[in-house]
């Protein structure tokens, strides 16, 4: 019980719930803007999941200064590798979001609506 109430369990549960909510938004919404917003929610949830998996209880950030001893740093810090992955993933995420927005805008200009059911160019 004390286990389940620690920080990383709460955040992993939150990230899974956000993932389910975002996917629900993607498959249930008709508005293309809402789909992009749901996609960015899924993005955030994956980042949260990766950072939670890196967390180790009672340890601190992987930055060595006066607060962390240099000699036995490996027993004091959390895992730095997922942090580096998430760092690049966030920057790529904004690129993808901007690309999707410009695509959505182009579609809006062509069809004059945001409803994806009206986009019939590729339908057969």
């Amino acid at each position, binding site marked *: 019980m004390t286990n389940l*109430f*620690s*920080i*990383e369990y*709460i*955040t992993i*549960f*939150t990230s899974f*719930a*956000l993932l389910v*909510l*975002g996917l*629900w*938004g993607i498959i*249930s*919404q008709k*508005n293309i*803007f*809402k789909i992009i*917003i*749901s996609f*960015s*929610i899924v993005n*955030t949830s994956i*980042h*949260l999941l990766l*950072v*939670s998996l*890196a*967390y180790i209880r009672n*340890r*601190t*950030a*992987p*930055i060595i200064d006066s607060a962390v001893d240099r000699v036995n740093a490996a027993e004091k810090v*959390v895992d730095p590798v997922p*942090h580096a992955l*998430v*760092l690049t993933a*966030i*920057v790529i*995420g*904004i690129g993808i*979001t*901007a690309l999707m*927005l*410009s695509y*959505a*805008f182009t579609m*809006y*200009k062509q069809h*004059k609506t*945001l409803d994806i059911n009206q986009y019939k160019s590729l339908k057969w």
Partner: protein
Amino acid sequence: MIYSIIVLILSLIMLVMALVAIHHKSLQIAVIASGIISLFASVVYIFLAAPDVAITEASIGSALTVIIFFYVLNKIRHSDAKE
């Protein structure tokens, strides 16, 4: 213990904001709600001992994404007014 309670409350707010972002019919409010999700995610990263990720999420996820969304929303509204 107190940290767990604070993280729990922040997580609950994130989930509520996700529901608002998906189901509210106004697009502007949905975008603002997704900005709030990013904001609280970045506070949670501080609890998870990841200040690097927190800075990135604060600067890119919470600020720049919302700004780009509003630029496109503005253009779409302009076109609506013209029709």
